[in-house]
Every structure is written in structure tokens, then in C-alpha cells.
């Protein structure tokens, strides 16, 4: 066996059959934004904009470090953004501007609440 063969026979994204620790029986109730993110995934699928396979490959394309560090729905929304860029439905600039706008809106809402 060559020194790299094992890398090809089981890709890093294929977890089935790997050794792993005990099952920690963790569960959590979804945050509102996580549920919106899930609903967004379904709506993107209904409209044939992003399907389940594309979503999975989009998450895998984030790379092992991001996959290991981001939470489940954090991975999803970043994958959606990247796929939407690839499909020329959104541009990175457009998303950056919109995120600034959304952030500023939240900040002004918080200031308004504090008054």
C-alpha cells in the first residue's frame, strides 16, 4: 500500500466505519435563527435552487477545520452563501453589504429598546 492510498479509499468526509468515542446523547431545542435556516434549506430545495446533495457537498467544501469548528446550522448558512455565489445568484459584495445593513438595523433596534 502506498503512503497516500488510505486518503483516497476513505475520503475525510466519509465518517462511516471510523473509530470514534462514546455517543454523548446531546440534544438541543433549535434557536429561532437555526429553525429559519432549516426552513430556508427546505424552501431552496422546493424551488430547485439548492438541493440536499449540493448542500452536503457545500458543507464538505468548507474543509475539515471549518466543519469541525462551526455548528451544524453555521455550516449550512455558509455553504448556502458559497453555493449562491457559485450559481451567480448572489455576489460576495452584495452579501457583505446586506450583512452590514442587517447588523446596523439590529444595533439601532437595540438602542431603541434601551431608550
Amino acid at each position, binding site marked *: 500500500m502506498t503512503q497516500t492510498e488510505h486518503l483516497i479509499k476513505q475520503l475525510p*468526509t*466519509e*465518517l*462511516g*466505519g*471510523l*473509530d*470514534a*468515542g*462514546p*455517543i*454523548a*446523547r*446531546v*440534544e*438541543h431545542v*433549535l*434557536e429561532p*435563527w437555526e*429553525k*429559519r*435556516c*432549516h*426552513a*430556508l434549506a*427546505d*424552501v431552496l*430545495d*422546493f*424551488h430547485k*435552487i439548492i*438541493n*440536499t*446533495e449540493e448542500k*452536503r457537498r457545500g*458543507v464538505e467544501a468548507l474543509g475539515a477545520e471549518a466543519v469541525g469548528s*462551526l*455548528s*451544524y*446550522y*453555521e455550516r449550512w*448558512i*455558509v455553504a*448556502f*452563501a458559497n453555493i*449562491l455565489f457559485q450559481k451567480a*445568484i*448572489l455576489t460576495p459584495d*452584495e*452579501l457583505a453589504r*446586506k*450583512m452590514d*445593513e*442587517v*447588523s446596523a438595523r*439590529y*444595533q439601532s433596534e*437595540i438602542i431603541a*429598546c434601551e431608550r
Partner: protein
Amino acid sequence: MTEHAHDHTPAAELSAVPGYYEIMETAVRELLTEKRLFGPGEIRRQIEVLDSRTPALGAKVVARAWVDPAFRARLLANGRRACEEFGITFYDDTDLIVLENTDKVHNLIVCTLCSCYPRPVLGLPPDWYKLKPYRARAVKDPRTLLAEFGTVIPDDVEIRVSDSTAMVRYLVLPQRPAGTDAFTEEQLAALVTRDAMIGVVKAEMPEAKEALQ
């Protein structure tokens, strides 16, 4: 960041300001709505659909299969069609294969590549179903994994693990517990848990459940 930096940040402010990814979610959703790729009400309606799906739906299907042999046969022949006949709509394109536990076979479901799950009948999966240890180990040593869930499968019983895909989802039809002959369909449904329909535990009488605790 110094180790004291967080001392100066009020907790209320931390919880009030949405994080980077939540802002990204809002921004993506608003941009796509502005471009009229979908209507603003569609996300809200889909959240209502998601909220309407819980393991109680799957439990009703299982209980019906236990009391109605003709329904059970239809369910095993075509899971999706039988569930739809039962009034459960499938909001996606997925097929459903129902796997029957018997004295000789115990079924377990997993998604090794991601988190595919029979959402129309069970709702969203628990976190542990989506995490590495379950996905990695379910296909390699299911007997040991099941024992961790308190489910000891005798050596002469075959364990079949079904790996879900984007298009094909599985649901385990657990064995009806002994001593439930007089139970109504509703009482039977109350014995069927989400974990029993994933296959990590069996459907059990309430006494047996309490004895384990």
C-alpha cells in the same frame, strides 16, 4: 483578547446582538426574497410545517401497523404511500422505507455522510444522530453502540444497519411489546419513542422503562 475582557461586556448586550451567522442567515433570506426567488411567507409557512412534525406522528403510524396487518403490509411495501394514505404529507422528494424488527432481525438507521432522517414522520433528528461518534460507529460495531443505549441484542439476532441518503430515508418498525393485547391504538402509540423508530432502543412497556431508570 485578555482574560478579563469579557468582564466588561454586559450579559444582556451579548444575548441581544445576533451573531455573525445569524446575521448571514437574515441577509441571505432577505436578498433572495428581494430577488423574488421565493415569497416572504414561505419561510414562515415552512417553519410551521417543521413544527408540525414530531415523533408522535411516527408513533401513530407504528401503532396502526401493530393493530392493522393490511396497513402493516402496505407500510412495508411502500412507506411513503402508506404514510400519505394515513394523512402524513411529505414536503420533500424523499422515499421512505420502513424496516420491520422481528425475533431474528433488529434494524438501526444512520446517515454516515450527513444527517438524512425521515423528517416528514419524525421531525428533526437529535444532535447525537448528526455527530461523528454515532455516524462513524453505527456501521462498524452496531452491537456495542446499541449496548451503550442500554439495548442488548442477543448474538443470534442479526443487526441490519441502513445508511440513509438524500433521496431514501428509513424508519424502524419496532416489535410490539408483549402484554399489550388489550391496549388501544392510542395506548400503543404512547409506547413508541423516537429512539425506538431510529432503532437504538426497543418499544417497551411503561414498567420496563421505569425499571431502567
